[in-house]
């Protein structure tokens, strides 16, 4: 598989892959990182909103 990196497109076999995830009441987030030697050359993130956090005014409006 070809991976887009800061060095251009590279074959995944040349890179070290690290996956991560976290989950709380508001979101479920996963990410994938690729390293060339010890340098981070790719990081993608997928955030799944489970409900709307209220900190930024995303709460239900009452009318």
């Amino acid at each position, binding site marked *: 598989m070809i991976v887009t990196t800061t060095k251009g497109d590279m074959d995944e076999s040349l890179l070290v892959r690290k996956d991560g995830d976290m989950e709380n009441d508001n979101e479920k987030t996963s990410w994938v990182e690729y390293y060339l030697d010890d340098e981070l050359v790719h990081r993608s993130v997928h955030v799944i909103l489970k409900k*709307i956090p209220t900190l930024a005014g995303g709460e239900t409006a009452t009318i």
Partner: protein
Amino acid sequence: MCTSFMSELMLGQHQLGTSTLTSRTSLTAPTTDTVKAALYLASATVNAATTAYSATGEVSGTGYTAGGVTVTNATAPTSTNTTATAGVAYWTPSASITYTTVTLSTAFDCVLVYNSTQSNKAIAAYTFGSQTVTAGTFALTMPSNTTSTALLRLATT
């Protein structure tokens, strides 16, 4: 309150006070405003008091265009009312908000959804865990479009 009124508010079908709107192409050929989503740095102040999109505090980096991306909006607002005091109108973008092949090196934790057709007026801001992206994709998947989880909800009490 009448159930239909709530979703009609989201559709802009009532004007109970003086308001200046950007004219649609036609008042008889229905159109939908363009909704966009911009990302903001963790250090930025974007909240319920935000009235319009601003580039101040917005992320920047390779592959990211100021103003963000257009939100897919294929599902019109819906309203329901189980009792006289339990009405809810709700709306959710019909697809994930995706920023493809971007490098955003400074941590960001907020997305502002705004109406680019109507002078970039703010709709809502949502926070999430702080992130960076390196030559990758940032995808924000919406919650389910239900009365209790939709991205925008107007409720009676």
